């Protein structure tokens, strides 16, 4: 059983414990890099945060998406199947789910305008929830890793705070979230429109206010302060969804969510390999893991749609629905492979918590 530190210097508690190096952890996993990039883009204004802006930079954006977003989606699958004993522990997820997912995808491509539309809506509704869950998981992970044992109530509050950007994202008039689940005639009622607008404004404020309030509350509790990176992760996810337009959020959030994810998954992969007494160094494992993920990402996002084109389907439905299916597969896999309560994840998070001074 790991020991909880008794009294640590305040600066050390606030800085927290990094997995690699504070700069790497704060910039990549914490999302600091995304805040810097978004601020630079917003100030310069030369690189519009819109699709038309991206249209002029296709040559830069497409490889960026492959190297971050596509690779990150594939990396959860790579992690799942490189985790020792995964097929024994999770036979449904590892053995059955891929075939079911492929069959469902094919069915949706057969009926793109009815079933396909729902698959896309499900993916777009689930995405912000997935990001919120990742923000929560990373925040708890860094707190635990830094010796801040959050109480049950604080964890529940933290979960709700992390879910706020998700609630903001699903209040959309068309296609996504409540726009998918509720009839447009109801949502277009003037009173409903006004109520939704007001709700969005309130949530936007809460997204930035509540993390600070929770941070202060935890600081005053027995656990002591959360590390700032735990706060940063939550704020970053809030910025992605509250400060950017919905479409921009979907592009930039996926890029930086991908960076964040790849960083943490590589850290855990290296720790897993070290625990398995691998003779290779960290760089070898990172490059190998990332390389396989990027290649698989290219295969999934770029080659697989053409297999459906080969089978006679249109490119549009093949591309859009393959992307949606990969997203949903990733969300499901992630919900299992990042459980912190047991297994090697818990060992990595708990490892080397500083002993009382």
């Amino acid at each position, binding site marked *: 059983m790991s020991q909880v530190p008794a009294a640590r210097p305040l600066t050390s508690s606030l800085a927290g414990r990094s997995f690699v190096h504070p700069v790497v952890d704060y910039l990549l996993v914490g999302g600091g890099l995304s805040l810097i990039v978004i601020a630079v883009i917003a100030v310069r204004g030369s690189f519009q945060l819109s*699709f038309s802006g*991206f249209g002029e930079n*296709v040559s830069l*954006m*497409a*490889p960026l*998406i*492959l190297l971050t977003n596509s690779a990150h989606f594939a990396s959860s699958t790579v992690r799942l199947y490189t985790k020792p004993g995964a*097929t*024994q522990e999770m*036979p*449904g997820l*590892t*053995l*059955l789910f*891929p*075939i079911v997912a*492929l069959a469902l995808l094919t069915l949706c491509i057969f009926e*793109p*305008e009815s079933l*396909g*539309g729902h698959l*896309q*809506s499900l993916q*777009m509704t689930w995405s912000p929830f997935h990001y919120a869950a990742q923000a929560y998981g990373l925040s708890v992970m860094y707190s635990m890793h830094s010796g801040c044992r959050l109480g049950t109530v604080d964890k529940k509050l933290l979960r709700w705070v992390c879910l706020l950007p998700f609630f903001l994202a699903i209040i959309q008039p*068309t*296609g*996504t979230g409540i726009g*998918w689940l509720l009839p447009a005639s109801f949502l277009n009622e003037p009173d409903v429109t006004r109520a939704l607008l007001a709700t969005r404004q309130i949530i936007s404020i809460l997204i930035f206010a509540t993390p600070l309030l929770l941070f202060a509350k935890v600081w005053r509790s027995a656990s002591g302060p959360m590390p700032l990176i735990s706060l940063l992760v939550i704020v970053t996810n809030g910025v992605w969804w509250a400060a950017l337009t919905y*479409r921009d959020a*979907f592009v930039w959030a996926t890029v930086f969510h991908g960076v964040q994810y790849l960083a943490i998954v590589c850290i855990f992969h290296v720790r897993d390999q070290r625990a398995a007494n691998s003779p290779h160094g960290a760089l070898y494992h990172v490059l190998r893991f990332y390389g396989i993920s990027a290649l698989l990402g290219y*295969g999934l996002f*770029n*080659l*697989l*749609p*053409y*297999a459906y*084109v*080969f*089978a006679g389907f*249109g*490119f*549009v*439905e093949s*591309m*859009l*629905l393959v992307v949606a299916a990969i997203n949903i597969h990733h969300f499901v896999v992630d919900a299992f492979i990042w459980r912190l309560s047991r297994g090697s994840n818990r060992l990595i998070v708990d490892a080397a918590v500083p002993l009382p001074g």
Partner: protein
Amino acid sequence: MQVSQRTRTAALAASAGLLIAGFGLGAWQSLSVDGRLPRLALSYNWWMKELAAKGDLERVIEQRRIAAAIDHNSSVPALQGLAAALQQAGRSEEAIEAFERVLALIPNSVDTLNNYAAALSGLGRHSAAIAHLERALELEPDSELLRENLEVLVRHRRELAHTRLAQLRAALEESPGSVPIANELAWILATHPDADIRQPDEAIGFAMTATQTGGDRDASVLDTLACSYAAVGRFAEALATGRAALALAIRGNDADLTAELRSHVARFERGLPVIDSG
């Protein structure tokens, strides 16, 4: 759940096999059609452009329609693409529907209003087209293109009205008792959006002719007379005649006409004439 090693191996092999086969077929398809591996692209727009370049407009429309149904992330560009493709194919009614869906999402899009006006004009709905161009001009008052388009449309509508009036007058000389001809003449002269086309006093004369030659049992004809009265400010007579027309429409179970006449009566009650915005 316990799964035997053999089952695990078989399931893994099946999944991996399907995936590898998919990748292989995808690569083969791309190489054989495009002569290269799939490009890195953020969207399907390049594919639409290639289809359009091949002149396969029907396939473009089909793919645009699917994109509009699925791609909630880019629903506006997807619908704009669909509307443009439908208009290019001469399917104006469907293009108008697509433009209306775009405008429901972005009501202040000047480009969409301009294209929508072009589609409406193509179907002869000049007044509606002009109304949308006027709205676009309110949003972008300095646009030369919008101003030119508006001037062309207004001029065209006026010319069409003059031509039609001349045809109707000639026809009425040949068939003085024709209710439809007298009714249409009266309608144009009473309700045309251009003030210099409207001749309300003359309209009343033609409308009276139409009602006195059997049109008094026709809700549309009575409505024309009511609108003619309203055009000269005789709202009490307009209201009485309009209500009689409405009663006939209700008795005839014509829902569209009833709704239209109700709106006319409402205008008379407020002391407003009817202008044909069709």
